[in-house]
């Protein structure tokens, strides 16, 4: 629903200094990319977000997040209404949409999640609010579809990108502190 690339495509590259360093580098192994991007609490993103680094969301995101080789963390202040495709997804905040991970989804006790989850491994802490579907069938259609041909489907450039008709700004903003907020 937010894939409006044909209408308008603006790219905000996260970690631009890093992207030039890694653009020609060999494709990174899952979750071994160079850094962590962060969408801070005051940032609103509406659109499609893609990239090759881990992402922490503490702001508001609507649309689609595609980081198939990396982890996405919805922090305790994060408020996401989106479909997320990632290697691993960790949820502490509020999420409404589909979570699809090739490795695992972790729903922590502070999380409020409505929607569907598809991942080979899912863990949920008691206290979390969840309403929806959890598909843990590794042979399930959702996972197969989302991650089939993944190597060719993912982009080759490094750094998170947004393709958004109306990003408020600062999507994929990076910071050296952001990496410290991810605990796997």
């Amino acid at each position: 629903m937010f894939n409006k690339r044909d209408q308008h495509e603006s790219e905000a590259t996260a970690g631009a200094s890093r992207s030039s360093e890694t653009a020609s580098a060999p494709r990174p192994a899952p979750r071994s990319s160079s850094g962590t991007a962060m969408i801070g609490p005051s940032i609103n993103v509406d659109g499609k977000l893609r990239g090759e680094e881990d992402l922490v969301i503490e702001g508001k995101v609507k649309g689609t997040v595609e980081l198939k080789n990396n982890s996405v963390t919805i922090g305790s202040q994060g408020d996401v209404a989106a479909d997320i495709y990632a290697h691993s997804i960790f949820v502490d905040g509020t999420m409404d949409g589909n979570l699809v991970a090739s490795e695992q989804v972790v729903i922590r006790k502070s999380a409020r999640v409505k929607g569907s989850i598809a991942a080979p491994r899912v863990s949920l802490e008691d206290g979390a609010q969840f309403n929806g579907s959890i598909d843990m069938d590794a042979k399930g259609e959702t996972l197969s579809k989302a991650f089939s041909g993944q190597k060719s489907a993912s982009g080759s450039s490094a750094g998170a990108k947004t393709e958004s008709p109306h990003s408020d700004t600062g999507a994929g903003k990076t910071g050296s502190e952001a990496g410290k907020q991810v605990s796997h």
Partner: protein
Amino acid sequence: MSSNAARPLDESGPEPIRAPLFAMAVEAFEDDRRHVVLDLGRARAGTVDLFGRYRCRLDVVDLPSHLSAMPDIDDEDQGPQAVERWLDGLLPPTRGETVDLVLCWNLLNYLPPGAIEALGRRLAERASPQARLHALIEYQATRMPAVPASFAPAGLELLADPAEGDTAAIPAPRYSPKELEKRLPGFSSEKTMLLGNGMQEYLYRR
């Protein structure tokens, strides 16, 4: 029915309760077939852990937390239809699959007969031909907590987690297996078992 298989619940702490019929329903998942489970209680770590061992889709809808918003079933004109619409707004989409196991936990104790019928109609539409429905019923006790406890598997046993704070009690409806069977179209009572905590475990099959 036998209580020999059940062991007493230590009220001072959350001791797991042996639930042979729950175990029986889950053991049917040992084949390599894909299964769909509909959990009508609060999402719990134990439930996700248990069904994560199988090729499974687990649908969770925390109906007990929404009961205060349930329309009045006794409204002569709109009651049953309003409850069905309310359920339609809460139940997750079927995604083209039928449900193999419905986990009601203690929910049915908190629904009036008409609401159970409305729920039963919706479940009948979603259930696979051999689907099972598992429920925990307050059968011996005349009163039960006003706020539903939540239950979670601990392996193939069950852990009760009483609601915090509210210690009020309300009359228990003490539904019999046959009474519920009448309210759950397409489901037949398969087996019942008295549990160590005094609740009754009912297992229905299509």
